């Protein structure tokens, strides 16, 4: 990966978009890559639409501004599709990853991307997280789906780094459930 990869996360404050961006950056950094993760804060109230960003590269990253033309857009909450413009700045061949029970072709239509070169991936991350973790925490499975869709990291690298991080805060059985969520998302993401 010679090129700088830029990601935009769409979520609602409290859903873990910022955390997901941090987890992804830290995992990328632990494999020797350079990465940034940063949120765009507005009114910081639970449920408000918010964005978080990643930059990932093999080279040092010096820029410090919002990502305006993301290669990848990740939508943690499908209701955000009607609130903000998730397509803003995304190139024609951009990648979309949406948490939704819909199929990729249904989502493609929903996004108005029929006939475009864009790649659309979907995962019912809410269901995956309910089944595995027992709570609606879609951010963890969405990271699994992201690396499956992009090959950004190896699954094992992500699992190892996430396990190390979560083990500092969570009980072992909860950590295991998160691992399961990532693995299942990795398998189930559809394109």
């Amino acid at each position, binding site marked *: 990966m010679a090129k700088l990869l830029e990601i935009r996360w769409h979520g609602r404050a409290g859903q873990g978009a910022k955390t997901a*961006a*941090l987890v992804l*950056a*830290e995992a990328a*950094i*632990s494999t020797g890559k*350079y*990465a*940034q*993760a*940063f*949120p765009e*804060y507005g009114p910081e109230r639970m449920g408000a639409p918010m964005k978080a960003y990643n930059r990932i590269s093999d080279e*040092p*990253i*010096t*820029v*410090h*501004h*919002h990502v*305006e033309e993301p290669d990848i857009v990740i939508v943690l909450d499908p209701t955000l599709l009607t609130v903000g413009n998730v397509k803003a700045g995304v190139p024609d061949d951009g990648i979309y990853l949406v948490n939704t029970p819909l199929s990729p072709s249904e989502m493609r239509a929903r996004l108005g991307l029929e006939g475009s070169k864009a790649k659309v991936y979907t995962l019912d991350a809410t269901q995956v997280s309910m089944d595995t973790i027992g709570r609606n925490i879609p951010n963890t499975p969405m990271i699994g789906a992201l690396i499956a869709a992009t090959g950004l990291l190896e699954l094992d690298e992500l699992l190892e780094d996430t396990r190390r991080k979560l083990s500092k805060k969570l009980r072992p059985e909860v950590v295991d459930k998160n691992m399961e969520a990532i693995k299942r998302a990795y398998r189930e993401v559809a394109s």
Partner: protein
Amino acid sequence: MSIRVGKTGNEAVAEAMRQINPDVVAAYPITPQTEIVQIFSSFVANGKVDTEFVTVESEHSAMSATVGASAAGARAMTATSANGLAFMWEVVYIAAAMRLPIVMPVVNRALSGPLNIHCDHSDTMGARDSGWIQIFSENAQEAYDNAIQALRIAENSNVLLPVMVTMDGFIISHAMEVMEILEDEKVREFIGEYVPENPLLDVDNPVTIGPIDLQDWNFEHKRQQAEAMRNAKPVILEVAKDYAKLTGREYGLFEEYRMEDAEVAVVVLGSTAGTAKAVVDELRADGVRAGLLKIRVFRPFPAEEIAEALKDVKAVAVMDRSDSFNAVGGPVFGDVRSALYDVENGPRIVDYIYGIGGRDVTPDHIRTVYADLAKIADTGQVENLLTYLGVRE
């Protein structure tokens, strides 16, 4: 052997404070500095530091308690942002005047109002004449490195002045980046044991600190303070040299990025320098002789050194992330332009006030600055001495 990690700016500075292990920290949380205090207080609660942590009810008390602790002979630190710094105001000046080597990370945030929590430099620029040394950081790595070096600078017997180490609010404080941290022993060895001058707790040598100082002596003591600020310059460079031996990371009073043979140059502080470097690379690839001068040490102001670095450039743009509301330009512009006054046939110089209240500054913005500079370099004519960059007209 340093350790490569991903950390946000706030995490990086809290980590530096853990490694410094100050005797006393008195701090009050304020966005976007909050995490520094929160993370550090967890270090205190978990016994990771020996620090006496004073939970105060305001920033005025935070700085007062820090001054008291420092006068007593403790290695004392605090941290703040924007309105917190404003609320400390009178004690900020007293800390410098009393020559107390306090180190204070300041997470740059717009000073309200209208009420705003995002980054600009109006908070610390307001404190530029307070007598504190001011060191600006481009990223989390620099915030960490500067915080550690600040201890040695402040505590140097030729200096004995407090130091503010800044980083851009949210842009750096809340952004995770790759950085390297040192081992704890290395940091402790580098900063060394603190030997306070005239500590109040030295009961065998009782002293009075902070007595009334009127027209008969105040001027002499202020003159000393001015001299200490002059003395800080070589000390900052000396400390940077030692730090480079430890880390390989070299720091000066400012950083010159691709300034060799530059015809046009931007002068900037903080995180925007990183964005501007990417633009410089782009322009250089296109054959434009563009350079960048990033000011690291704003107080003391490296006037002669900046004049030397910019003397052969044709056109210079200063980027100010605050306005001084003097109806002329920003505070950095004033100082840089004044530094260039005695340069014969020196560069034309213009000011750009940008990024106010956290307004994002993109490579496109910076490209327009270099484009303006190219025109000025070509014609020798300045059309707009001051431009508000990125404001909606």
